């Protein structure tokens, strides 16, 4: 991996981490004490700092370090997470993102930070600095009556010594140990506990030892050395040593750098980083051995967890154990993942998929050749190859499939920010995040989706007061849902807001001259007018959603992906927008038809059925053709009419076929001359020259070497509509 691709990987990794951080911050808004989320924010900053440092991105290291330190204080309970602080953390996240953008843009990697960024960062850091960083626990507050739960001080070792009755008789003088301890550092605070409360009623043997000590100790010595002070007292004293947070940091850093092969045994792991002394480990293991085994619900017995015992015995702080457990789990997971996951350059993958596409075409060519040559005994071989090619194709496409969830969860931030700005209360529900689709589709759908969601927040959901007056819950709901449906992915955006005012849309459309007052339009048709260019129903456009130019752009973007967008809305109740997209853009399962002198491919997923064309059942109404299909009135288009390529050699009486296609909730018929069967084919874009050609999504080269046009059914339907409108205007 060269430095450039490493850098690219870093930038991508940071984007992921920042997304996680954002999710965590959003969760913290709900529950400011959620330890998982606090950790997530800390970890994001910690990791970015660490990796940024490897690349020498000092501004990133400096900035994330401050945030990391702050998060550590929050995480360990030394600082409260206020709403204002969460807000600032959001900004810190954005600033980190801006820093990364700056690095991504700077190819040399040496440009000094722009003064604007520098200032923004400084301002944020100043705000963090002014946040009330709580002082470490005052040592005077230490309570040694319950030494089981030692208080934790910031940069001090906490040592608890409970001497047993025989200690003095065994020649073990606590004062000697304390004096020696004093030679290793500073006894910042010593609490002496002498538990005889009543001299009258309690027996006091002057040769027995009753003393316990709690010591706040400042020293650079390691845990092993400090524990060594009391090595002779181990039989005569309960010793607990808790490392200071500063050491705790070191342990966690060590935990993160430890070679993977060393993490198998928790105890050894902790001893190897110095968080635990061998004696403490042995003591805990003994306890574990003698502890009664618990019987699990499944009937198996299990020993008490070592970590639990260690914490109980005061050998180690719970968060170090947590970290160790996490390290263990991470490494185990990573080991498995290393076997499971390989990162591949998207371009290479794209190239592979292109090649697979060519293979599909070639394989089709072979089939045709074999058929033409009449080599019967090769058919079986060709079938086998076909099968393998289709398997390869499916698997290759699967490689580029990603769950849509991650991109959908980005919208939490959009909803949060926009609703906060507008003073609305909105809950975003996301379901179906596990639904997979092609990464290239995911990338291209983000913008249109963002627009639609902003619209829902901006125009859809009403202000709380208005909602209350309308008898709705003050908190509005936007439901994002994704699922697979017959080779497509369906994304629904459902809001329980104001809905679309059909009357107003119509009025506006008339005003703009999009329709005539005398035009008869169904409810759906009126609603669809919002996809027409230049129509905004909001009199005063906000800066949040588009200024009325948005919806037609959204529609065009979605259609460019061979997708469709549907709209349902009831005034006062809500709006539902349904986007239907192909799972992939690279290959299409098509149905090949012949019409006139040419061949066309209709996306197979849109083909409902093929029937014989019965000319007696057709009607022509206001210039549009309809056919009575089993009692249902179906509009149809004759392809040879549309493309004006009728084959003059064809006799009028020759039979035609009707291919019934569906798009969204609509159906229409396409009249063709011949049905040629199913095929898989690679889509080739038509190129600039033909980009204005409507009704055609692309072209493909057939096995015969001929070119076939791939029809865009939704667009064909619109052509039909325009056709109709232009007729009705006459």
């Amino acid at each position: 991996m060269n430095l450039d691709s490493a850098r690219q990987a870093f930038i991508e990794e940071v984007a992921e981490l920042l997304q996680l951080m954002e999710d965590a911050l959003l969760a913290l808004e709900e529950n400011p004490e959620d330890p998982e989320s606090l950790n997530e924010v800390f970890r994001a900053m910690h990791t970015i700092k660490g990796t940024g440092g490897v690349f020498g991105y000092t501004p990133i290291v400096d900035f994330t370090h401050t945030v990391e330190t702050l998060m550590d204080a929050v995480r360990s309970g030394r600082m409260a997470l206020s709403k204002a602080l969460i807000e600032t953390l959001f900004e810190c996240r954005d600033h980190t993102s801006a820093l990364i953008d700056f690095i991504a843009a700077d190819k040399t990697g040496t440009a000094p930070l722009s003064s604007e960024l520098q200032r923004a960062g400084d301002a944020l850091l100043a705000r963090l600095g002014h946040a009330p960083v709580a002082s470490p626990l005052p040592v005077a507050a230490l309570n040694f009556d319950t030494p089981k739960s030692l208080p934790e001080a910031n940069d001090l070792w906490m040592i608890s010594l409970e001497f047993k009755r025989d200690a003095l008789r065994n020649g073990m003088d606590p004062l000697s140990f304390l004096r020696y301890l004093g030679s290793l550092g500073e006894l910042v605070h010593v609490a002496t506990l002498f538990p005889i409360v009543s001299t009258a009623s309690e027996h006091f043997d002057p040769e027995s030892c009753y003393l316990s000590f709690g010591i706040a100790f400042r020293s650079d010595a390691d845990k092993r050395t400090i524990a060594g002070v009391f090595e002779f007292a181990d039989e005569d004293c309960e010793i607990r040593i808790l490392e200071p947070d500063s050491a705790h940091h070191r342990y966690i850093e060590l935990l993160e750098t430890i070679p993977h092969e060393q993490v198998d045994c928790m105890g050894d792991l902790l001893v190897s980083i110095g968080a635990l002394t061998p004696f403490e480990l042995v003591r805990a293991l003994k306890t574990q051995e003698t502890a009664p085994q618990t019987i699990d619900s499944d009937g198996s017995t299990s020993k008490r967890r070592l970590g639990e015992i260690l914490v109980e015995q005061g050998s180690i702080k719970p968060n170090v154990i947590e970290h160790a457990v996490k390290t263990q789990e991470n490494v185990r997971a990573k080991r498995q993942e290393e076997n499971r996951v390989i990162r591949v350059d998207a371009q290479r993958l794209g190239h592979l998929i292109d090649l697979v596409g060519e293979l599909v075409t070639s394989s089709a060519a072979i089939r045709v050749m074999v058929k033409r040559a009449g080599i019967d005994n090769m058919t079986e071989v060709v079938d086998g190859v076909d099968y393998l090619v289709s398997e390869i194709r499916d698997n290759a496409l699967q490689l580029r499939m990603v769950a849509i969830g991650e991109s959908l969860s980005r919208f939490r931030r959009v909803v949060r920010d926009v609703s906060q700005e507008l003073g609305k209360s909105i809950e975003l529900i996301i379901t179906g995040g596990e639904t997979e689709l092609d990464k290239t589709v995911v990338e291209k759908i983000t913008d249109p989706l963002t627009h639609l969601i902003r619209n829902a927040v901006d125009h859809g959901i009403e202000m709380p007061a208005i909602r209350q007056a309308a008898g709705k819950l003050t908190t509005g709901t936007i439901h994002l849902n994704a699922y697979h449906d017959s080779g497509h992915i369906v994304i629904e955006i459902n809001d329980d807001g104001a809905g679309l005012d059909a009357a107003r849309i119509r009025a506006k459309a008339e005003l703009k001259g999009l329709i005539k007052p005398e035009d008869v339009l169904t409810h759906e048709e009126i609603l669809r007018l919002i996809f027409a260019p230049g129509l905004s129903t909001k009199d005063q456009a906000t800066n949040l959603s588009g200024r009325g130019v948005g919806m037609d752009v959204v529609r065009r973007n979605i259609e460019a992906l061979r997708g469709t967008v549907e709209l349902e809305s009831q005034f006062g109740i809500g709006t539902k927008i349904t986007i239907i997209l192909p799972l992939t853009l690279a290959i299409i399962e098509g149905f090949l038809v012949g019409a006139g002198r040419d061949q066309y491919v209709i996306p197979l997923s849109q083909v409902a059925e093929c029937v014989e064309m019965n000319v007696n059942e057709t009607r022509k109404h206001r210039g549009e053709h309809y056919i009575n299909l089993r009692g249902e009135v179906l509009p149809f288009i004759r392809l040879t009419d549309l493309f004006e390529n009728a084959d003059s050699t064809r006799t009028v009486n020759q039979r035609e076929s009707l291919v019934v296609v569906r798009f969204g909730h609509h159906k229409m018929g396409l009249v063709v001359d011949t049905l040629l069967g199913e095929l898989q084919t690679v889509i080739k874009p038509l190129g600039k020259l033909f980009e204005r050609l409507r009704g055609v999504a692309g072209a493909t080269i057939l096995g015969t070497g001929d070119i076939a046009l791939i029809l865009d059914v939704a667009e064909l339907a619109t052509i039909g509509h325009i056709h109709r409108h232009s007729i009705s205007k006459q």
Partner: protein
Amino acid sequence: MNVAAEDAALVLEGELTIYTATATLATLRDYLSDRKVCALNLSAVTEMDSAGLQLLLWARRMAAEQRIRFQLVGVSQAVVSVIDLLQIEPLFGGYPTDLTVENAT
């Protein structure tokens, strides 16, 4: 051990260790049985260990139970080093101000 008047100080001398603990405890019980104040003069203590410390803590508690004042009217270096090590000077009402700390060694 000089026990003069009701408010006279008890002088403890020499080792204040586990070897003398049983005897010293008896002395302290005796001293505290009829007192208006518990005043201990430790200026001649040559050595003090944890057992000695426990005796002081015990005496202080007993004085508190009897609601009489507990004070150290003299401390030797050996005693001071323990009190300083454990930071328990406030426990014993501070060092005597009228007496300089005598070095008992």
